[in-house]
């Protein structure tokens, strides 16, 4: 059986990973695992946080080459803070996603990183955007990424409902991450979750032993 992921071709430290973001009624949940590996054999970090805050209410998850992703998010963070000073208003989520997209598209030959950008803004409320490897930008209500995401496409398709409550969405995200970490050898560790709503940002960390268990464990 072939593994369908581009991460396995990444040189150096890769975030062979599982990331996801889902909108619910009033906000978004963004989550990721916490494992960084080299070549799928050595876990170089068990507790890396792949959910980066690029602005007050906008977060980005990275997948692919860790080095590329870190460099791009640092550049995006700077760009966005400058942008928000100029506009005298917090940036829109799509602005953050576009900044990442520009960087990915213009440097597509050198970079190997994809992003999920999610957050809340006053204009459109909760949103999730995906920037893929080559620099395509699309908006979706729920999205998953990284090598572990292949195993949970079926689960996400079946279980996601638009306009869930915050608790339902958190449970959905935790379950999805736990399932992916259970099947993908390059995803694991703890589950980092961030809930973004109009009123604020809440971090939830679910350690490995507190993750939901399924029938075969």
């Amino acid at each position, binding site marked *: 059986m072939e593994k369908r992921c581009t991460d396995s071709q990444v040189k150096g430290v890769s975030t062979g990973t599982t990331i996801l973001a889902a909108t619910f009624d009033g906000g978004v949940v963004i989550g990721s695992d916490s494992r960084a590996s080299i070549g799928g054999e050595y876990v170089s970090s068990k507790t890396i946080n792949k959910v980066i805050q690029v602005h007050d209410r906008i977060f980005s998850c990275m997948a692919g080459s860790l080095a590329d992703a870190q460099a791009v998010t640092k550049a995006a963070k700077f760009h966005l803070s400058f942008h928000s000073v100029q506009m005298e208003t917090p940036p829109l989520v799509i602005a953050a996603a576009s900044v990442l997209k520009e960087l990915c598209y213009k440097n597509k030959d050198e970079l190997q990183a994809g992003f999920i950008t999610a957050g809340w803004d006053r204009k459109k409320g909760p949103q999730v955007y995906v920037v893929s490897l080559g620099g395509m930008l699309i908006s979706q209500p729920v999205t998953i990424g990284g090598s572990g995401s292949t195993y949970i496409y*079926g689960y996400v398709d079946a279980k996601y409902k638009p306009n869930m409550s915050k608790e339902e969405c958190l449970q959905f995200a935790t379950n999805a991450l736990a399932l992916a970490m259970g099947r993908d050898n390059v995803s694991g560790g703890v589950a980092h979750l961030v809930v973004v709503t109009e009123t604020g940002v809440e971090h939830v960390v679910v350690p490995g032993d507190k993750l939901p268990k399924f029938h075969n464990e």
Partner: protein
Amino acid sequence: MLEETGPEWLSEEVKTGTTIIAIEFDGGVVLGSDSRVSAGSSVVNRVMNKLSPLHDKIYCALSGSAADAQTIAEMVNYQLDVHSQKIHLIPFFLFLQSLHFIYYMSLNRHLFNGNLIGWQTGVFATLNGLLTRQPFAVGGSGSSYVYGFVDAEYRKGMNKEECQQFVVNTLSLAMNRDGSSGGVAYIVSIDEHGTEEKVILGNDLPTFFDQ
């Protein structure tokens, strides 16, 4: 295209890039598969039944190279047929022997489903030669997308209807995501009363939030 090589389906091997699933319940088993056979990016058969009978109450689900899988299934069918003439109950060791025969050919993966009368009911999965008995098994290219779903949704002690619904849901999710799986869903349910084959057409398959 400027090349003279002709269409790729003439040179590509025909594969059953596929989704197959088998699940055991108290009193029998349910098997399911999609129906797409592809040669490269061309679908050469959109209604192939990949659930192949090896005996009255033993079915197997095929994946991998279509030609190899079909041939092996027919060979095993013949072997079991010949031996069952002499002895009405198929001894379990013979069943295992025929599976072993498949490993020697070291081809592809097959999911086996056995309901040997009065002896054993079970789902056996063969992965390039490893034989394991499991309460349920998924295989084929589409199976990667539904590992999470089956892990979450499988419960012990489901009855036959629940198993059938579980199989249909799983196939539907996999067919939506896997380019090499699609078409209709074939379901086979085996219990002490007999074997029941069903086809669920594309438009009757369950749909999900984004459809």
